[in-house]
């Protein structure tokens, strides 16, 4: 039974259908920047993207090779564990399905790893089947470094810490390995619709 706060009432206009906003979230229009460390600035000529781990032949793309891959424009709602949600964000990115095309792996988990040392883990099935992208543009512009450029993960069905900024690769693993926030009190999976914010949720 919740405690009723005398005099408290909804002040925000319902600016989205309830089925668009997960429990405990509110809709914002700006795009907050939250980082656990400094913003890396890797020159594009030094940038590459790799698939490593449980894979016969590791894959690697230079920036030019990566940008030559087929990409998609996707419009998705995103949900940050700090409680903001942003609706209808427009990204351009390469589907993880494209990157994993033809890969035969026994891995069931994947770790995203980034410049600066950030990692985040998730089941492999959460980045396949049209659920995840390596995004390089936001709102029609090259992805700004403060939002994770030159490229970041986009896994919009999970809280947004599961979409690593400055991503440099995916490590396929047969075991689950909690990443940065997952070892610092945040939920291992992070489904916003089940409000899986913290350990034990």
């Amino acid at each position: 039974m919740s405690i009723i706060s005398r005099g408290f009432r909804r002040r925000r206009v319902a600016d989205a259908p309830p089925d668009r906003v997960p429990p405990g979230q509110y809709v914002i229009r700006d795009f907050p920047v939250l980082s656990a460390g400094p913003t890396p600035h890797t020159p594009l000529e030094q940038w590459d993207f790799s698939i490593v781990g449980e894979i016969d032949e590791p894959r690697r793309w230079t920036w030019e090779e990566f940008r030559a891959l087929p990409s998609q424009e996707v419009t998705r709602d995103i949900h940050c564990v700090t409680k903001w949600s942003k609706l209808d964000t427009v990204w351009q990115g390469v589907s993880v399905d494209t990157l994993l095309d033809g890969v035969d792996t026994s891995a069931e988990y994947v770790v995203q790893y980034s410049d600066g040392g950030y990692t985040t883990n998730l089941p492999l099935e959460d980045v396949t089947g049209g659920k995840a992208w390596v995004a390089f543009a936001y709102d029609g512009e090259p992805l700004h470094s403060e939002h994770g450029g030159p490229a970041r993960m986009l896994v919009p069905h999970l809280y947004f810490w599961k979409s690593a900024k400055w991503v440099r690769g995916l490590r396929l693993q047969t075991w689950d390995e909690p990443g940065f926030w997952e070892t610092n009190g945040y939920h291992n999976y992070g489904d916003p619709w089940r409000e899986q914010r913290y350990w034990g949720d």
Partner: protein
Amino acid sequence: MAGTAVLGRLTWQAAQVVDVVVETRHVKTITFNVPDWRGHRAGQHVDIRLTAEDGYQAERSYSIASAPDGSRLELTVVRIDDGEVSPYLTDELQRGDQIELRGPIGGYFVWEPSQGGPLLLVAGGSGIAPLMAMIRLRATAGSDAQTRLLFSSRSWDDIIYRSELDQLNGEDSGLCTP
């Protein structure tokens, strides 16, 4: 795949307002008593939840500004004029009222006296709150970790915790707040 529970769920707990202090024109510090509080580390935060009479709920996160102190917690809240939760916390909430909160949350941005120093703490506005928890813990624990606070405020009158910082600065050569 729902992941594995590592700890028990952080359940919502009743928190009773025991004090409200005006910090600046826009900022108040609210002290809560949370009977079953499991303790926190300096730098951690809580989620609070307000429920309206029609069942509407809003959640927000606030840093804990107080050093660990039994069942007592201080949250420092800036009133955002067109906000939904902060005007309620700063204008409506009175001593004796209860709200719900859960925590403590976050295991990364924390400091323990055993980690020592030196510490360089940099804050703008209400961003000082989690750093104040560290500064207060440093004082209560008798830590001599060299600590420097760089704190930006919009004006002299907007400096949160000004008198306490002046006092700490005056009595402790290891703490510098230029």
